[in-house]
């Protein structure tokens, strides 16, 4: 049984929560656990607004436990460390992403793939083994086991770096796992939102030729001039799609809307790889013919393990990759959610938590 925060937790915390599936966020007082021996306490400075925050607020996936304090693209500074903490010191610039716990003993955990542990504990809208509930980063502070805390390299800004903790690792991990990093190869990035725009940048940093694939022709100039894509393909222009058939080695599909896979599979060369990281709420149609005839594959991927997430942050710092963000104050969050639902953001909202959250 879930116990109330008051029974188990001692530290007072404050944030914004949704209390029902209207998804409207409002100020919310709660408790977090005391800093344990293996724990790090962060003062939260920034938190990115991920599309899954919106889904969870509105209970789109059917497993929201209200009240929900969202936020899993969290950056801040360390204010407390437990006695077993070796990785961090007070004052360190750190981040927390999508997960804050796992079993630490299964095959996945032993292979640094905590993100696929069957007992993964998500950063918010989840319960700990002792029954206490987890709240996310739209709040003033958070207490996290050091294993799930990331170090921000010195040159990586805390605001524009925060979205890398979810959006960044979500595209970086499959590129590594599926072997999509060979310089000179051709990567298609379908969908130019929070994930897609980071995928373009990471793809370029790997030395790939990158084509942004989008249904919005007006994004062309931005994709090429601002994000650095080599070319732009309008996905609902049959002529252009036809002329690009069989030209790509890899595609990362970040589109969450229901969409046909056949045109994307057609863009791939023989042995091409299509990785989907978006979460459409209905099944997609998967044509088998192109998979068999061209030995193509379609694969999924879900964020990344802690070791790889640190590697991704270091990679982004080295290549000066950050998210393109619009910084907002916490009281603007409900408007931001409305805009996010309409994809009206280039490309990630980040809440300036420290400068705008107050009782």
């Amino acid at each position: 049984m879930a116990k109330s925060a008051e029974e188990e937790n001692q530290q007072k915390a404050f944030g914004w929560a949704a209390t029902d599936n209207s998804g409207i966020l409002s100020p919310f007082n709660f408790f977090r656990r005391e800093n344990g021996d293996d724990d790090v306490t962060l003062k939260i400075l920034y938190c990115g607004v991920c599309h899954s925050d919106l889904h969870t607020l509105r209970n789109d996936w059917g497993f929201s436990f209200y009240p929900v304090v969202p936020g899993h693209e969290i950056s801040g500074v360390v204010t407390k460390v437990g006695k077993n903490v070796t990785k961090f010191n007070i004052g360190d610039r750190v981040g927390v992403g999508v997960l804050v716990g796992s079993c630490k003993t299964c095959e996945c955990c032993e292979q640094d793939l905590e993100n696929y542990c069957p007992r993964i504990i998500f950063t918010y809208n989840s319960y700990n083994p002792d029954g206490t509930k987890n709240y996310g980063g739209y709040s003033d502070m958070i207490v996290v086991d050091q294993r799930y805390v990331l170090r921000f390299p010195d040159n990586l800004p805390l605001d524009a770096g925060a979205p890398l903790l979810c959006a960044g690792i979500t595209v970086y991990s499959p590129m590594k796992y599926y072997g999509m990093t060979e310089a000179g190869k051709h990567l298609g990035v379908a969908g130019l939102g929070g994930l897609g725009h980071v995928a373009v940048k990471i793809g370029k940093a790997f030395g790939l030729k990158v084509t942004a694939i989008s249904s919005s022709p007006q994004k062309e100039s931005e994709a090429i001039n601002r994000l650095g894509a080599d070319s732009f393909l309008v996905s609902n222009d049959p002529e252009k799609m036809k002329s690009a058939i069989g030209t790509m080695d890899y595609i990362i599909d970040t589109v969450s809307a229901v969409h046909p896979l056949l045109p994307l599979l057609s863009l791939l060369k023989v042995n091409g790889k299509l990785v989907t990281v978006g979460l459409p709420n209905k099944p997609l149609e998967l044509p088998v013919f192109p998979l068999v005839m061209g030995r193509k594959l379609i694969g999924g991927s879900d964020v990344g393990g802690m070791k790889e997430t640190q590697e991704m942050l270091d990679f982004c710092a080295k290549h000066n990759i950050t998210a393109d963000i619009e910084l907002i104050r916490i009281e603007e969050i409900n408007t931001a959610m409305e805009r996010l639902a309409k994809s009206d953001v280039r490309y990630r909202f980040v809440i300036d938590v420290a400068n705008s959250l107050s009782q």
Partner: protein
Amino acid sequence: MTRLPEEVHSNKAFGWAAKDSSGVLSPFNFFTRETGEKDVTFKVLYCGICHSDLHMVKNEWGNSIYPLVPGHEIVGEVTEIGCKVQKFKVGDRVGVGCMVGSCHSCDNCMNNLENYCPKMIFTYGTKYYDGAVTHGGYSNIMVVDEHFAVSIPENLPLDATAPLLCAGITVYSPLRFYGLDKPGLRVGVVGLGGLGHLAVKFAKAMGTNVTVISTSPSKQKEALENLGADSFLVSRDQDQLQAAIGTLDGIIDTVSAQHPLLPLLGLLKSHGKLVILGIPGKPFELQVFRLIQGRKLIGGSMIGGMKETQEMINFAAEHNIKTDIEVIAMDYVNTAMDRLLKGDVKYRFVIDIGNTLRPSS
């Protein structure tokens, strides 16, 4: 322009052909080319009946050219070689599978993946370089570029080896490519037909632990005792499925009939791979989050390149892998096609061409 073989060639041949989309096969006289510099000519001794022969004789894929002589699981004995032939000599045991030509210059050909060459020429029903339509192995003689012939080791029986040239390579290649060939891995095989029964044998020979997944509980004994599978799962039994969730590293799915993918994805461990070899008439329904949770993938594969086909044959020889076959006479072929349509064969028909194909008057 497509030309008839007799307009191009003078070498007399005979076999059985379908003349129209009824798919009924009957004796047929035709011509093949003379043995070219790089060609081997061989007397056909056995030819397997692949399910795609059935599709092609009935024009179910819409691209059949009649008269159509099917057959792409062909074995025989070399009778003549061209002056530039290096791999074969007269009397050698040879096999020809699904293809007899490719461009030899594209990326795929350069990587020994002629099977994915955009200009690949199928063994039958495709226009060859000389304009003639290719004819398959339900016939007395084949003339092929030596690049597309494989050598058959002495210890392999010709009849039970013929189906390896299509069914065998179709399952062998993805086991290798998708890394499902490591001892100790747990591999599922869906569907126990021509492809499936060979997938069990190859996967076992590679040292994996094999689970056969089938809708027919009646196949359990056969799968375990005759084919050597380690376990058997009835795909319609919810309790069995539930108990097997998250236990397999990979699945080779050989079923062409429409079937749900979701239960199969559920059987995979994290990072598991589902390889599809059959092509159902309609697209699958794919719940993407089932791939995302657990980083699973769905991949396809189509036969294999020539180098890998030879490797597969050599592997079969080394591990004594043979197809389970029912040898038939040429004039039984129409009955065999009817039985094949009903899945009534364990597991492959092979036509005894050498002893039963008689010239028509």
